[in-house]
């Protein structure tokens, strides 16, 4: 299956800018469906970014993050061609991981 994670990491020499877009329903558990039944909570709880064996960014998310979540950040260092590892885990224990080459 194709990865749920799309990452673009761009090095400017001194810093690396990272943008990630993940396919996930991010159901908060407060929304009702057409029949008036609550859609159970289903959202990513933690998203981590690792570079060179070190954590560079961790996102702790609740159900208030938009569907198909997007996040952008930047860190110092990061070489073109090096790999950035991205993983998430949701409240049902599902998980996905991908690696992206820094451009």
């Amino acid at each position, binding site marked *: 299956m194709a990865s749920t994670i799309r990452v673009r990491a761009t090095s400017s020499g001194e810093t690396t800018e990272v943008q990630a877009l993940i396919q996930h329903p991010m159901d908060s558990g*407060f929304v009702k469906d057409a029949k008036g039944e609550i859609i159970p909570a289903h959202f990513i*709880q933690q998203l981590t970014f690792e570079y060179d064996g070190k954590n560079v960014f961790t*996102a702790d998310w*609740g159900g208030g993050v*938009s569907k198909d*979540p997007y996040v952008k*950040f930047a*860190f110092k260092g990061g070489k073109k061609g090096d790999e950035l590892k991205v993983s998430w885990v949701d409240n049902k224990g599902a998980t996905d991981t991908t690696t992206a080459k820094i451009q």
Partner: protein
Amino acid sequence: MTDVGFSATRRLILQGAGAVALVGLGNLPFLAPALAAANDKYPEEAFKAKSEADAIKALYGKTAEPSDKVKMDAPEIAENGAVVPISVTTTLADVTSISFLVSENPVALVASYKIPAGTLPNVANRIKMARTSNVIVVVEAGGKLYSANKEVKVTVGGCGG
């Protein structure tokens, strides 16, 4: 609801056991990594708090003071509360964490980001807003909390209308 109560109690017991274990370990060398691992834990209690004050307390154990060094970029009016782009940047030094909260949401805390040394204190994301509300950004820098807030008007709510 019984399920929730049960698991919350269980978690408290587990946390208690963890605390006892830590005290028991005293000054053994592997205490530091144990604490670091605890910091990476998902802040479950903070994501259950209804109000932003409770969420900030659960997350950081202290209160935030407003600072003009925390710059939030949010729309004046969001046509669609399901997708509201918010970004924050700060000139504060030694930033360790940035959190986003919406006062009128059923759960105030939306997202909390850990910023390790070497990562820049700028974050952009997209959040849901149930209705017109104050959006609060909390930045932890040098062990202190700073905040900025802005009212965002929502035309169509993002939590089921």
